[in-house]
Every structure is written in structure tokens, then in C-alpha cells.
């Protein structure tokens, strides 16, 4: 599922003012040349400290998003309308968990531990995608989350498959391959309700679209002019396409899809602009976005509390499994 511009807050030039030795300058030049040549950087290769820190922040927050992203969907597992939809929903949630694990492992290659990352999430220091701080109120939300939220995530994630940091890129290739079913199953669920459902079910779908459309557009992050770290991330090959370009691409794809479904997108300014070759759209409420990012969305506290209690309630299991493994290792004759 994922990511909005994860790297939202301007970062101080971490270690940027430090004296750089001649050796390091040489390494920096070699690194820049490799990036320019489109080469991949592997875990053990030399990299600038800020490159490492930026990646740790982005990959770990991407991982947190996958894990927290399981919560809004978990809300509907027991109330899925049919066994088929329940099996699909379970498979999707299991994928999100898997995606979180691929990404945590990719971040660990940069020298941060799993526990450190979880501690940052649980203490509220690390962010996750703000979209998951909205509630899933009806079954139609499950369809719309698949269609719009996963759709936006895929749009965001596909360019990261070409990210300059290879372990991240490899994780993203796997994730993107698995993720496309997420969007399709959502659209399929909505189409079923819109074409075979009752008037009440169609109204439920429209209501869900009304609530999720704008937050989905916010998933691409603030406008390019307000994205302080974008230029550096582009330079490093971590980011390939700008927030606004991705958002436009998403809107251009979503409008015809909404027509197939027969739902209205809740934006009176939305219309085709022949000259631009794109849809124009109305202003996004960035005040709401920053409020949710800052911790004051509808479900921020609930989501974090659910993660913390899952971690704490599972502590005895982790400890018991470790104690068992250590005991058996001791009993094992040395070979």
C-alpha cells in the first residue's frame, strides 16, 4: 500500500558542515558518477551519510505504512459480505504485512535495527502514510481503498522500482508485482455493487468515494513547490517523478475509471483540458493534510495504540521463542 512523500519535514544538513577529507571527496565523486551513470548502489558500497539517512527514513516509514495499512482493512475481515470477499481481503492484508517485512529488511541493510525502527514508530517519531488515519466506515470503503488508495500507492511505487538503492528497488519490484491485484479486486468489488447492487449499495459506494477521493490525492505529498527534499532525492535517484506529476497521472487514470463505475468524483472543478492534455482539478485542502500528518487525523491515536499493544502483547511470544531456540542450541552437540 503505501507512501506519500515520506520525507516531508525539511532536514537539517546532517553532518553537512563537517570537514570532508580528501579521501571522502574522492569517494563522493565516484558515488555521484555512479548515480549519473544510472548504476545501482548496494548495501556494502560507500554512500554519503545523508543518502543513507534519507533512505533509512523513507524505507522505514514506507514499511510502517504497510504495517499500519493493515488496520483499516482488518476492521472488515469479520464482516465481509461473502466468503469469497473475505478470502480476498485476508490475502490482501497478508500481502501488506509481507510488504512491510520486505521493506524493513531493506532498511536494515543500511545499518538500522528492526527494533530501532519499531521504537521510532511506537514513540510517534516516525511517520507513516497519513491516509491510514482515516476510518473505514462501510464495506464500500474496502472497495474504494483498493481502487483509489492502492491505485495511488501503485502510481507512487512503480517509479521506486528504479530507485538507485538496489535493496529498496528489489523490494519494490516484488511489491508492485503483488500489489496490482489489490487495486483490481477493489474495483471489482465496487463494480459488482454499482451494476448488480441496490440503490442503497450504490449510494454507499458514492459516499465512500466522496470521503476517500481527496485524501487519496494527498497521498502524493505536498505540491512540488512545497517539497523541500524532492530535489535532493531526485538528484540521488531515490525519487524519479515529482509529486505533482504523479498526482496528475493518477487523476487522468481515475476519471475514466469512475465513469465505468458510474460514480461522481467530488470535485466540481474536475474537467478535461484539451490544451494541457490533462484533467484540471480543484484546490486540495493542505491544511487538513498537515493536520493529519501532525497527529490530529480522525484515527491517529487509535492506529498507534493498536500497533503498540500488538507489539507489547506479543513480547512474551518473542521471548519464549528465543529462549526455546537458545536452549536447543545449547543441547545441540558441537559438530
Amino acid at each position, binding site marked *: 500500500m503505501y507512501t506519500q512523500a515520506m520525507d516531508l519535514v525539511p532536514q537539517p544538513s546532517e553532518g553537512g558542515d563537517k570537514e570532508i577529507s580528501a579521501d571522502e571527496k574522492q569517494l563522493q565523486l565516484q558515488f555521484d558518477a555512479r548515480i549519473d551513470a544510472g548504476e545501482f548502489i548496494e548495501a556494502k558500497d560507500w554512500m554519503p551519510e545523508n543518502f543513507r539517512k534519507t533512505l533509512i527514513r523513507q524505507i522505514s516509514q514506507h514499511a510502517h505504512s504497510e504495517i499500519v495499512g493493515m488496520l483499516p482493512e482488518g476492521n472488515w475481515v469479520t464482516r465481509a459480505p461473502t466468503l469469497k470477499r473475505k478470502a480476498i481481503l485476508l490475502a490482501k492484508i497478508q500481502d501488506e504485512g*509481507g510488504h512491510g*517485512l520486505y521493506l524493513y*529488511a531493506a532498511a*536494515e541493510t543500511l545499518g538500522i535495527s528492526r527494533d530501532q525502527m519499531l521504537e521510532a514508530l511506537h514513540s510517534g517519531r516516525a511517520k507513516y502514510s497519513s491516509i491510514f488515519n482515516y476510518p473505514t466506515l462501510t464495506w464500500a470503503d474496502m472497495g474504494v481503498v483498493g481502487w483509489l488508495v492502492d491505485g495511488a500507492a501503485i502510481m507512487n511505487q512503480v517509479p521506486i522500482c528504479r530507485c538507485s538503492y538496489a535493496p529498496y528497488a528489489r523490494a519494490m519490484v516484488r511489491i508492485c508485482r503483488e500489489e496490482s491485484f489489490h487495486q483490481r479486486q477493489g474495483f471489482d468489488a465496487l463494480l459488482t455493487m454499482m451494476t448488480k447492487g441496490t440503490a442503497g449499495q450504490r449510494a454507499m459506494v458514492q459516499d465512500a468515494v466522496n470521503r476517500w477521493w481527496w485524501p487519496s490525492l494527498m497521498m502524493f505529498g505536498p505540491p512540488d513547490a512545497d517539497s523541500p527534499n524532492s530535489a535532493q532525492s531526485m538528484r540521488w535517484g531515490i525519487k524519479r517523478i515529482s509529486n505533482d506529476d504523479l498526482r496528475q497521472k493518477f487523476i487522468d487514470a481515475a476519471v475514466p475509471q469512475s465513469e465505468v463505475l458510474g460514480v461522481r468524483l467530488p470535485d466540481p472543478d474536475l474537467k478535461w483540458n484539451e490544451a494541457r492534455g490533462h484533467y484540471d482539478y480543484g484546490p486540495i485542502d493542505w491544511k487538513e493534510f498537515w493536520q493529519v500528518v501532525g497527529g490530529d487525523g480522525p484515527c491517529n491515536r487509535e492506529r498507534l495504540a493498536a500497533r503498540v499493544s500488538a507489539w507489547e502483547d506479543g513480547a512474551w511470544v518473542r521471548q519464549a521463542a*528465543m*529462549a*526455546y531456540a537458545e536452549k536447543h*542450541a545449547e543441547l545441540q552437540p558441537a559438530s
Partner: protein
Amino acid sequence: MNSEKKEWPLWEVFVRSKAGLDHKHCGSLHAPDGKMALKMARDVYTRRMEGTSIWVVRSDQIFASDPAEKGMLFDPMESKVYRHPTFYELPESVNHM
């Protein structure tokens, strides 16, 4: 031993996608021991029939070459073109050997 607060060790996962092919590295995961690592690898890396066999190995047991020595280790092979069959130009009539 004190297992409290201790992170489960890291394992590297190798999957054979079908009989006849090599096991290929596909990622890593944390697990308390090999048996659990196998079970978890099955859930994390083979949810869509990606495998017929899994190997797991403790990450700290892997010895890896140093990227800084890449040139020293691998560049000398660049000049040894005679190790490739295409180096040898043979008459047309026997060139398929």
C-alpha cells in the same frame, strides 16, 4: 541466558522456484531458529507458488567479498578472452562445435 529484549537473528532466504533450477536469494527475515525461519519464509516469500523448496541461513554466517576489492578480484578476467568459445574462429564447416 537472557532472551529478554533480544532481537531475533536475521536469516537469508533462498527459494527454488521449480524443480531443476537453482535456489535463488530472495530476501531476509528475523526468526528465533532455523525451523521457524523456514515456516516464516514460506509465508513471507511464497504466497503465490513462487517456490518448491526453501533454504535459510543465518546472515551472520555468510562470508561476502568486499565491494572495495571488486576490481582486484574480477577485473583480471577481462583480458582472458580465450576462456570463451567465441574467441576461436574455426572454418564454417566445423564452427558449430
